[in-house]
C-alpha cells in the first residue's frame, strides 16, 4: 500500500473558492493540499471562460477568468499549497473525530484532519454529443477518452470533433487503425496548426478520411457500433462503417463521486449551515458553488466569504488547544510574517 500523505486540510477542487480557502486557512497556520481532476487550477474560470471578463469581484473593477486565477495563485503562494492535478477524489472515510482518509482514482491516499469540499458544479467530464441513442454504445464502442491504444488496433475508427483531443488522437491512432475517419463540421479547427497540417497531409495521402459534416445518428446492436450516419454540410448524408467512435465535444460538469459521500444533499448540492459552512458530517465543510443554504448565490464573492468563516471553525478542529484572536493583515505583524511581507 502507498504511504498516506498527511495534511491539516484537504481541499477537493482547485476552483477560485478552493484557492482562496488556502489563503484564509494559511493565515491561521493550517497546511493545505488540493486535488482537482483538471490539469490546471482555476475550475470554471480556467476551463470555461479564461478570456471573458468578470466585473463583480469586490475592489477589482475588471479582470478575466484567467487573470483572477493568476492573482489568486500569487496571493496564496506564501502558504505553499500542494496541488495534485488530473486526479479525482473517489472516497472519504472517517478515521477519527475528526480525521479522514481520502482516496483518489490515481491510487493516492491522504490522511487529513479536515476536509473542505470546493467541488463547484462537480468534476469536469467529457460531454456527451447530442446524438440520439448514443448512450447504449458508451464504454462498449463509443469512448470519450483513450486509456489503452491497443483496444483500437485493427479497428475501423471514427473520430468526431475539431479540437486538440480530436486531432491528437487522429494522429496517434491512424497508424494502428484498419481505417480511420475524422468528422468535423467545418474547415477551421480549434487545435494546434501543426496537428491540423499533419492531419491534412494524412488525408491527402489517403491514409485517413476527413469528412466535413456532423454525425446525426448511430446504428448497431448490443452496444456494438456498426454505422454512423454523417450529415454533410450540403445536406446529403453518408453512412460510415465503424467499430469504434471517439467523440470529443469538450467538457461539462457532473456531480460525480460527491453524491456518494453520505452527506445531506438538496438538489445535488451539499447542505451547509451559514455560520461555519459545515456539512451534515462534522469536520467536512463545503464552500463555493457546491453548497446550498437559504439565500445562496453562486457567485465568486459569496464563496470567498464562506471560505473565511469556514477557516475559523476548521482551526478549532486542527488546533483544539489554541485560541484564535481576530487580526487584520494591515496591522498584524504576525500575519504579515506569514505572508512574507515584513
Amino acid at each position, binding site marked *: 500500500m502507498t504511504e498516506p500523505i498527511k495534511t491539516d486540510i484537504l481541499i477537493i477542487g482547485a476552483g477560485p473558492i478552493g484557492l482562496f480557502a488556502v489563503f484564509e486557512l494559511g493565515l491561521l497556520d493550517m497546511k493545505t493540499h488540493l486535488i482537482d481532476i483538471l490539469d490546471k487550477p482555476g475550475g470554471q474560470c480556467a476551463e470555461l471562460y479564461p478570456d*471573458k471578463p468578470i466585473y463583480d469581484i469586490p475592489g477589482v473593477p475588471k479582470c478575466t477568468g484567467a487573470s483572477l486565477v493568476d492573482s489568486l495563485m500569487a496571493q496564496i503562494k506564501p502558504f505553499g499549497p500542494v496541488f495534485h492535478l488530473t486526479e479525482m477524489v473517489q472516497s472519504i472515510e472517517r478515521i477519527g473525530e475528526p480525521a479522514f482518509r481520502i482516496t483518489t482514482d490515481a491510487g493516492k491516499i491522504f490522511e487529513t484532519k479536515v476536509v473542505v469540499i470546493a467541488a463547484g458544479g462537480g468534476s469536469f467530464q467529457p460531454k456527451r*454529443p447530442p446524438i440520439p441513442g448514443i448512450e447504449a454504445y458508451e464504454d462498449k464502442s463509443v469512448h470519450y477518452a483513450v486509456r489503452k491504444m491497443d483496444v483500437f488496433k485493427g479497428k475501423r475508427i471514427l473520430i468526431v470533433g475539431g479540437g486538440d483531443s480530436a486531432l491528437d488522437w487522429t494522429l496517434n491512432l491512424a497508424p494502428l487503425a484498419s481505417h480511420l475517419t475524422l468528422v468535423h463540421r467545418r474547415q477551421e479547427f480549434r487545435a494546434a496548426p501543426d496537428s491540423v497540417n499533419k492531419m491534412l497531409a494524412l488525408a491527402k495521402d489517403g491514409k485517413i478520411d476527413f469528412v466535413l459534416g456532423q454525425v446525426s445518428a448511430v446504428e448497431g446492436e448490443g452496444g456494438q457500433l456498426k454505422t454512423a450516419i454523417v450529415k454533410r454540410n450540403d445536406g446529403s448524408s453518408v453512412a460510415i462503417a465503424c467499430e469504434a467512435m471517439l467523440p470529443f465535444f469538450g467538457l461539462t460538469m457532473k456531480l460525480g463521486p460527491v453524491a456518494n459521500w453520505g452527506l445531506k444533499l438538496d438538489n445535488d448540492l451539499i447542505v451547509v449551515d451559514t455560520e461555519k459552512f459545515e456539512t451534515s458530517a462534522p469536520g467536512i465543510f463545503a464552500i463555493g458553488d457546491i453548497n446550498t443554504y437559504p439565500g445562496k448565490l453562486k457567485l465568486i464573492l459569496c464563496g470567498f466569504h464562506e471560505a473565511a468563516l469556514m477557516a475559523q471553525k476548521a482551526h478549532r478542529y486542527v488546533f483544539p488547544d489554541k485560541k484564535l484572536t481576530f487580526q487584520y493583515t494591515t496591522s498584524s505583524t504576525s500575519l504579515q510574517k506569514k505572508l512574507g511581507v515584513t
Partner: protein
Amino acid sequence: MPKITYIDSAGTARSVNAEVGSTVMENAIKNGIPGIEAECGGACACATCHVYVDEAWREKTGEPSPMEEDMLDFGYDVRANSRLSCQIKVTEDLDGLVVRTPERQA
C-alpha cells in the same frame, strides 16, 4: 420595442417585445420560451442557446464571430444559418426577427 418571433421544432411560434441592447437569448429566457437553455448565462461558453436565423434575416444579424464558430462546434445539427442567440444583440433594425430553435440543445 422590436418584436422577435421564436419558432420551435414542432412549428409553434411565440413572439415577444425585446429591449434594444438586450440579446435574443435573454429575451427567450425572460419570457420562458422553450427550446433555449443558455446554461452559461450568455458568455458564449456552452452552445445551449443555439438558433437558426430565418433566411430573410441573415444579412441583418450578421455572421458568427470566430469565438462563436468555435462554440458552435458543440451544437446539434448546426447549419449555415446557425447562431448562438446570446451573441445576437437586439437593434431597431431587427424588428420582426424570426429565429427557429433546434430539436435539441447540446
